[in-house]
């Protein structure tokens, strides 16, 4: 009995070690106002490594990058563009401020609706209708009926062909595991109520439990109901 407990404790600690690896490129982006815009807008077509790789360029160069991204389909209001450029030019510019401890605990957790607008709408659409052939709709998506699967997708991302209705999607969904348990729960609850009419709520403890066993995006696909 004692040996089994020891083994479990050790395995748990190993898993904790893996957690730090799962956080990924989102952590390479320094905290600062506008960081969420990068996370929400810049993963539709490529992963964040492109953004991180350009760290150190001037504001003028970032402006050129953003102009080119608009040609590629990036949509920003003028206010968003200002915030985004300020973030990129400051925190990923030639003279970034010294890193500060991220106090995520102190920040007010955001509502599911606000999180959706920041992180999800750029791909899945403001109404959750997706984009044909590119990003699946969330509205009336049967996968939202399952209480665990949406949490897994947010924690670890998703990769591989999926069918939603009569359409197949071949994209890659990035992980949003950098969000807190509370925020992931709030977001999943928003998706389920707004788009799937499900009243049953998912709590932060459920999210924390699913964080204990990291999965690859391809493994998340296998869990799809």
């Amino acid at each position: 009995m004692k040996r089994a407990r020891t083994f479990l404790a050790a395995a748990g600690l190993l898993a904790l070690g893996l957690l730090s690896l799962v956080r990924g490129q989102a952590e390479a982006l320094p905290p600062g106002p506008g960081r969420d815009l990068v996370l929400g807008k810049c993963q539709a077509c490529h992963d964040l490594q492109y953004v991180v790789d350009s760290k150190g360029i001037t504001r003028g160069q970032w402006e050129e990058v953003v102009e080119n991204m608009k040609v590629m389909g990036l949509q920003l209001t003028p206010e968003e563009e200002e915030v985004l450029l300020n973030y990129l030019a400051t925190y990923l510019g030639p003279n970034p401020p010294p890193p500060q401890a991220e106090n995520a605990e102190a920040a007010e957790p955001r509502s599911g609706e606000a999180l959706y607008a920041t992180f999800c709408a750029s791909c899945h659409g403001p109404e959750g209708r997706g984009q044909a052939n590119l990003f699946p709709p969330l509205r009336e998506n049967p996968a939202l009926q399952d209480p665990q699967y949406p949490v897994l997708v947010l924690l670890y991302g998703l990769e591989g062909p999926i069918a939603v209705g009569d359409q197949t999607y071949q994209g890659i969904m990035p992980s949003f595991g950098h969000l807190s348990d509370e925020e992931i729960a709030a977001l999943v609850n928003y998706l389920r109520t707004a788009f799937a009419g499900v009243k049953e709520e998912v709590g932060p403890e459920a999210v924390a439990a699913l964080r204990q066993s990291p999965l690859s995006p391809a493994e998340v696909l296998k869990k799809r109901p």
Partner: protein
Amino acid sequence: MDKVNRRTTLKLMGMGAALLMASGRVRAQGTPTADQVIQGKDPRLIVHNSRTGVLETPLELLREHQRTPKEILFIRNNQVLPQGKTLEPIAPDGWIISIEGMVQNAQAFDAKILKDLPQVEVEMVLQCSGNGRSFFARAQRTSGTQWKHGGMGNVVFKGVPFKVLVEHLKLNLYPGAKYVTVNGKDQPPTLQAPDFEHSVPLEEALEKGILALEMNGEPLPAAHGGPVRFVMPGFYGTMNVKWVDRIRFDVAETFNNNQIPRYRVPNHPIQPGSEFNFTFENSRPNWHQKVKSVIFAPLDGEEVKAGNVLVRGVAWNDGLVPIEAVLVSTDQGRTWIRAKLTSPQSPYAWFHWETYVALSRGEREIWVQAVDKLGRAQPLDGTVHWNPRGYEWNGVDIVKVKVV
């Protein structure tokens, strides 16, 4: 365990991370490994982007092969075919290619006919035009993937000469046609983004262009453009358009975002860090590969024993004329010796060079410069060619070694 102390906790967490990394499943930053991005690739490749597939070959692997095997060959996809993230081939049967534009006989054909047409083989350097971009940071870092030297390889393509296809199909080009634009079956990631395509001069396409079906003696892997890739020996990688779908003959280059302003360099030097408004007149596309050499041994940062040290590597250019000399300096360019040069059969392939240099203890630098028969030489300071997107780096290659 009665008590879990801090040291044990940390040790086990570290072991967990190490275990995962050793098994190759998750890289240090939580990004997928190269074999998870493109099925079949060596997991030791550096992952620059997992979405479409951008992988760089470490020099330790690249230098081991005369012909770069597909498992370690770099890859840079702007867009990707859904079934294209694998080294498995796609059969050309049923793969329709259409011909448009300034031809009297516009048509579509099944790529399977290419198997029965006359074929040629060409050994050539395939190099991303962003290869070496990270070195521009010596003056001013540019945006884009920060390649070192691993965005290149030496491969053999086999396929139908473009000229042969044009004649076989009896296209009857209109005399005014000056460019050929190739677009692949891959699609852009959003509806608003332009669909990747490139234009090359028609004259050169007819002279050396190939519709490649094979790479290194095997059917062309899907990830590298199979079943049909438009190959231009001596041109930068981006111009070798993958997954050929439409071939268009025209009077001008395409206006597509990928032809302008992307994948272009100014015609004249500009101040590092400055902005540049690209036009067709003041800039040129990443067509001909600039003369270049890369040191394969010793590697940057390596420790070597004092005395005679073997320095070796490769050199190449756009294939118009051979490399004439490769010069090596160990005193930061004050004095040079000429390395022994081995010429390949193909003008587009790697030349191999090697020489011994005497190094005494301390921190030393080894500089290498290639010169070709037209007198084109690598600049001592590659940032002289600084451009806003960091293309076409070809500065004299420099490695710093610690001599003990």
